[in-house]
């Protein structure tokens, strides 16, 4: 299945989903030479925003990718009130939506520790470098700790060049 991050991001933007890009793609946007196979976002988990998320992917055959039977992503008010995370497979690839980020906090805190990035198809918020390092350190898997080494180098380099991060 292809992973088309641009297409997914465009759709989220079109539907006005409130979200912050986190994870590997956030590292890529900061300059890390990594390849990541999914798109991770932190979003506000309330009914309104989850319904926007649903609208953004509804014609992409979204399914809960971690459920045994790959259940379709069809929200009810009960689900909106109880879900903490949504892990989706769509026709445009994987989209993982988290309500909080380990090492950073819930959506409000994630938003506070994010920075805007303008792309040709809209302005997006991404976790700032410091918070991304905290998040990957908190997760602590081998691949995350590897990424931390790279992100620390980028942070150091940007500080030397007086670049904002």
């Amino acid at each position: 299945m292809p992973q088309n991050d641009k297409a997914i991001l465009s759709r989220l933007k079109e539907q006005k989903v409130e979200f912050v890009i986190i994870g590997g793609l956030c590292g890529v946007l900061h300059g890390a030479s990594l390849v990541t196979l999914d798109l991770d976002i932190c979003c506000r988990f309330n009914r309104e925003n989850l319904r926007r998320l649903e609208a953004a992917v509804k014609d992409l055959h979204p399914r809960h990718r971690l459920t045994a039977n790959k259940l379709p992503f069809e929200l009810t008010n009960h689900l909106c009130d109880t879900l903490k995370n949504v892990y989706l497979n769509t026709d445009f690839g994987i989209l993982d939506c988290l309500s909080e980020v380990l090492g950073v906090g819930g959506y409000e805190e994630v938003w506070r520790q994010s920075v805007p990035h303008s792309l040709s198809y809209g302005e997006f918020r991404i976790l700032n470098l410091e918070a991304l390092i905290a998040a990957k350190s908190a997760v602590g898997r081998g691949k995350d700790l590897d990424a931390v080494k790279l992100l620390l180098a980028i942070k150091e380099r940007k500080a030397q060049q007086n670049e904002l991060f």
Partner: protein
Amino acid sequence: MIDEETLAQMNGKYVCPPDAGPAWRAAMEYGFDMSLVEDALRLTPEQRLEQHQRALDLVLEVKEAGERHAAK
């Protein structure tokens, strides 16, 4: 006549920026190709995203080819 240093660089020796700090050197020593990071830092975020998409497409293409081969 190419000097030895240039030849070494042609053969893949990475030269750290003279002002590279400890984290940069640590990442390099850990095995990251920091020349790729230097290149990425010269790009705009959108260019980085496009470059990533191309790399990802290639990775998935190779993965699919491997799966097809294994299925035969």
